[in-house]
């Protein structure tokens, strides 16, 4: 059974359970690339990935690389009760990041204190709607890396 089909990872966190439409996103993320499904017909990016374009109905698409820069659209600070693996990290932030290159496309992620730091590592007082962020990739396994976020633009 592939790891992705098991309940949780070794640290008790949930791996993405992907599907045919979403799998390329995670494959690129594992290589440290942030790419967004984009219509090959009308060139409109869309998220979450889906079989065809809701604007021109084309089934042709490509995975467009984006800059990995964005801003915080909103965020929460999660407190227990939570799944055990997450309860140990709480309180932690979960933010919705609007991409600079694709407004309207917003990725859920954790804003971390430093690359590879765990969710919950950042002082919540440093979070604000509108704050600039940039992507970083947290490696979970050889085949899985999660796009995560750091404050600032550099």
């Amino acid at each position, binding site marked *: 059974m592939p790891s992705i089909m098991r*309940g*949780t990872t070794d640290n008790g*966190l*949930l*791996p*993405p*359970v*992907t*599907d045919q*439409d*979403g799998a390329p996103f*995670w494959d690129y993320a594992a290589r440290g690339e942030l790419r967004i499904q984009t219509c090959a017909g009308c060139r409109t990016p869309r*998220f*979450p990935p889906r079989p065809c374009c*809701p604007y021109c109905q084309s089934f042709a698409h490509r995975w467009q690389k984006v800059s990995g820069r964005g801003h915080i*659209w*909103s*965020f*929460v*600070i*999660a*407190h227990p*009760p*939570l*799944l055990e693996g*997450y309860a140990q*990290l709480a*309180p*932690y932030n*979960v933010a*919705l990041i609007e991409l600079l290159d694709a407004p*309207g*496309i*917003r*990725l*859920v*992620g*954790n804003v971390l204190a430093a690359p590879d730091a765990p*969710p919950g590592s950042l002082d*919540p007082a440093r979070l604000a*709607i509108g704050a600039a962020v940039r992507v970083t990739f947290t490696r979970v396994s050889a085949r899985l890396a*999660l796009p995560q976020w750091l404050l600032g633009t550099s």
Partner: protein
Amino acid sequence: MAAALKDATAIVGIGQTPFARQLPDSEKTLACRAVLAALDDAGIAPSEVDALASYTMEETDEVELAKAIGAGDITHFSRVGFGGGGSCATLAHLAMAITTGQARVGVAWRSRKRGSGPRPWRGSVQLPTPAQWTRPYGLLRPVDEIAMLARRYLHRYGGTREHLCNVALACRRHANRNPAAVMYHRPLTREAYLAARWISEPLCLYDNCLETDGALACVLVSAERARDCRHTPVHLHSAAQALPAQHHGMVNYWNDDPLTGPSWTAARQLWKTADFGPADVDVAQIYDAFTPLIPLSLEGYGFCARGEGAAFTEDRALELGGRLPVNTSGGGLSEAYVHGFNLINEGVRQLRGTSTAQVPGARTCLVTAGEGVPTSAVLLRS
């Protein structure tokens, strides 16, 4: 088509079990008790029932229910998806079946042991979409998903936790008048709200609905038949279902304006076929799994302008005697959380004049299903 549905059917019976954190009966038993209570209230024999409607999440299926209560031959049965978004749609489906001659006596119901049963978000089993984009990051529970929208909403329109507190207090004060409410004996103060533990900031414990065991049901027949029933008929004046364009469910994070949820779409359909407007609504039962859903819905259903929902809650506007009394039995926040079905029954009581927080002379009531998911709503009129 719209003219055909308007006031063509009426709710003539309501029933419910007790509500509690834990009830000994099974969900199936609770379902049977609620349905039989509703039929008894209507004065209609179970053998006359020929239509059933419930939620896709309902665990007691039509076969089990019909054979247990002694229903007749069933000629219409339907289920509505998306959890609490389906509550009012069950009535809409029955009304369409009765109006088109597919059935004569319809029963809608919901039975749930959410209080003593498992918490759905606890499991590690995930659906691929859209959970793959959220759950790995610890956005696990419905409250987290709504808190994300709530913070943006409060930030965008200058709302505060005081506004959310207004919602919680209104529901609690109504529950404190309702002996059937789980929170009947439990007053809530603003101080206690502001001191409560966080669940998902900016939402605290009292921004969350209860976890309840219980069941409810109601009986729908044609308006003509309703005239012969024992209670004042409560007419289904208008009904709507709503899955907006480019909507993404509870994680409605990927369209141009995530803060205009399904209630806006439901409202357009609802008011289009109604003889009256938001200003004519005497009392409202608005789905309240989380407090922010109330200001969002007030905007969506047209009780105030965009961004004014938080301010609308000021000056006890949502309480008995206020501008728009809301959730007069205590709602999901303080009466019981049974996927919004208790809001339907309370709407009926208001128009019968038998609520424990009765709005004097109430003639019209809006009942809504879950905002933030594909939803439904009805306008009731006596």
